[in-house]
């Protein structure tokens, strides 16, 4: 059940020239949202742009007494809508539709959970980490960015007991290179007897690489894909992802059957270019 909340902006915290965290007073959605679900935001009140934009629910916001206040989103400025969210000011109102999509399924101990995030792909993992923590599931966050200034919220995950493995392409923080390097090392050394679920979100090439590692090491991988979405409700059939079905394959709507997919079912070659 999705609701549409015309939510006041509680705060806009700029993390960098292109990243910000936007706090939205939508407690109804916070109450319903599960890890990995997303919302569709109307970034402007007018017609420019016309369509909503999809964003993962980042944090559940609570007041001093722990009552749900709303949600936040981790926004990366890439175009007109995300630029509007970057410029949003407290008091502005933004229409928030959600929660939408299939959530992550958090594993329980003794299984371990590995989260693999690239850039803004960190967004769906804050809520996942919380529910993993509730289950006392041992967790690791493999988190890669271009450089040190692109890595955020490590302490948030550390507080929840996540082990952090950081990489930057320019080596300014953590290991130098791609996040899949330490992931592969970890996989190669992880005892076969240790049950494990891998959750990945980030640039498509990264998720594809993680999926490949999952197959090689015979580990379950769940990816959160980011196709362009027109409606988020199953109405437009714009968001399709090709998935294997029996012998063949067919298009499914990622706003309903995703955005989280079992990586082995995704036909990667058929994914929308650029994402």
């Amino acid at each position, binding site marked *: *059940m*999705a609701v*549409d909340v015309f939510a006041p902006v509680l705060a806009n915290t700029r993390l960098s020239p292109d990243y910000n965290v936007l706090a939205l007073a939508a407690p109804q959605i916070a109450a319903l949202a599960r890890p990995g679900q997303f919302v569709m935001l*109307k970034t402007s009140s007018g*017609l*420019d*742009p*016309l*369509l*909503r934009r999809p964003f993962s629910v980042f944090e559940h916001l609570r007041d001093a007494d722990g009552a749900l206040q709303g949600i936040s989103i981790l926004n990366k400025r890439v175009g007109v809508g995300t630029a509007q969210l970057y410029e949003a000011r407290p008091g502005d109102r933004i229409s928030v*539709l959600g929660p939408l999509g299939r959530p992550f399924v958090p594993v329980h101990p003794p299984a371990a959970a590995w989260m693999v995030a690239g850039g803004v792909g960190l967004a769906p993992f804050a809520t996942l980490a919380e529910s993993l923590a509730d289950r006392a599931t041992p967790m690791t966050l493999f988190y890669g960015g271009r450089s040190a200034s692109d890595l955020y919220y490590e302490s948030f995950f550390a507080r929840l007991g996540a082990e952090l493995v950081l990489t930057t392409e320019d080596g300014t923080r953590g290991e130098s290179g791609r996040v899949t390097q330490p992931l592969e090392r970890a996989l190669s050394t992880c005892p076969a007897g240790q049950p494990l679920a891998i959750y990945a979100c980030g640039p498509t090439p990264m998720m594809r690489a993680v999926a490949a590692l999952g197959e090689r090491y015979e580990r379950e991988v769940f990816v959160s894909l980011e*196709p*362009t979405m*027109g*409606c988020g*409700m*199953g*109405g*437009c*059939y*714009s*968001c*399709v*992802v*090709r998935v294997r079905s029996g012998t063949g394959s*067919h*298009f499914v709507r990622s706003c*309903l059957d995703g955005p989280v997919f079992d990586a082995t079912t995704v036909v990667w070659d*058929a*994914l*929308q*270019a650029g994402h």
Partner: protein
Amino acid sequence: MADLAVRIGSLRLTNPILAASGCFGYGVEYADSLDLATLGGVVVKGLFLREREGHPPPRIVETPAGMLNAIGLQGIGVHRFVAEKLPELRRLGATVFVNICGSTLDEYCEVARVLSDAAGVAALELNISCPNIKEGGIQFGCSLTGTYEVVSAVRKVTSLPIIPKLTPNVTDVASFARAAEDAGADAVSLVNTFLAMAIDVETRMPKLSNVMGGLSGPAIRPIAVRMVWECRQAVKLPILGMGGICSVSDALEFIIAGATAVQVGTANFVKPFIWSELIDGLGSYLDRHGYPSVTDLIGQLQLPAREHA
């Protein structure tokens, strides 16, 4: 409170606000957010006889005050629709319009037959205007004889109200409304989308995998309103008007121009809860302006004393 009921041929709608085809899935997707029975009608996604895969992504791209789509009529086919979706839609009390497509006259007729035999279909909207697929519909919709042939062929095989959906990509849309009327249609729907394209100048590739797509949304509204008005003057048939409706006042423009009912497509993507706003707003406009029934407003455009058109 004014009477919002309208008639499309033998069919009575509780109100003139419908969800447009292809913008509302099969309707069931919205069932737990909305009471589908409150809509004047639900026009489900275009259906062929068989399942269709549709075009690869990217299937949509946003444009100024509009969007292009080239979904390619991905669909489950009429038989699975009847088996899997129709019963649910009936249970929900939806007034179901089915948008039907065909590559041949026979296919249109076969799809129409299947739906006529099934329980719970209120009317058939003949999609002869989808700009996004080579083989389906549009070759009928861009020729007067083709339009006449499809409508009269389907007329022979069904007693359901049939509503050809006209393409705006023609010189004289009114002549197509006339052809539909002559062939025995119960109403006409217009407009479908405008054939258009967008180019990524960095890659110099089309932004849609299908190269071209259909333009919808507020951008096209003034053209659509004009076409509805032209058709209103050309035929007696009820008109289902659409194209960029996002608000009560947008819907009123179409009704005043001559539409008996309106459909909302793209705006549903932005405001999935727009329906009550439109239905209530229409009622209060009628009350405010002293119209006992919405039917009193249809085609009430007042031309200025000094007319130049």
